[in-house]
């Protein structure tokens, strides 16, 4: 059987990560590659999430502001992203499924504070659209 082929931005980046019960874990904001010393192709070893992962993708001044804004809103005092080892990924489909819950992975709740202060205050945030 041929090995699976996919494109990073089409099939992996910005996808929701869920646990095996369908519970929300995070979004895939970036990935980390290991670059082998023997010259073989780099391969994905970690999924990265959080403002410190998304900021570099936005790039430039906007990216730096993004990271700083989340530091103010959340409880983070470091600039490192949350990391999910790729060996915990069990499926890549419309969502990425991992074999741990968000709590087990220790994914930072900083985004919840941003949601509380920004998203939840938008008109209509409290009910589904008709």
């Amino acid at each position, binding site marked *: 059987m*041929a*090995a*699976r*082929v*996919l*494109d*990073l*931005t*089409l*099939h*992996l*980046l910005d996808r929701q990560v869920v646990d095996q019960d369908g519970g929300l874990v995070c979004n895939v904001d*970036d*990935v*980390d*590659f290991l*670059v082998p010393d023997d010259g*073989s*192709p*780099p*391969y*994905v*070893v970690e999924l*990265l999430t959080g403002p410190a*992962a998304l900021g*570099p*993708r936005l*790039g430039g001044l906007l990216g730096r502001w993004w990271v700083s804004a989340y530091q103010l809103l959340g409880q983070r005092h470091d600039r490192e992203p949350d990391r999910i*080892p*790729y*060996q*915990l*990924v*069990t499926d890549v*489909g419309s969502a990425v499924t991992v074999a741990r819950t968000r709590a087990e992975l220790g994914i930072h709740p900083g985004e919840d504070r941003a949601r509380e202060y920004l998203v939840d205050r938008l008109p209509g945030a409290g009910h589904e659209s008709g």
Partner: protein
Amino acid sequence: MRAADLLGADVLGPDGRRLGEVLDIRLVQDGPKLGGSRALSIQGLVVGTRRTASHLGYDRAGVRGPALVAAVARRLSAGNRFLPWVEVAELTAGTVRSAVSELIPVPDLPDQP
């Protein structure tokens, strides 16, 4: 190395001529064993000059959508090319140096499960 280090990086030919920028990273699941499956290793880079339409996948993945949208997206991404990873000569901050001056058409993606 993060994907953010590659995405948007300038791609230069062996003579220094700019070939485009990295729009996407093609992965194939044939890397070392990680957990219960093989790792996603880099097969090559999708290189182009117009980022807008490429993210929709009309140029690579047989995405079906409104005919007019598809036609415009394909027109915008007609110049996209593919740089196999074996032809990457050098990686420096923000730049990918290709060992070849002519890139190949972007291979279609197989249907996703």
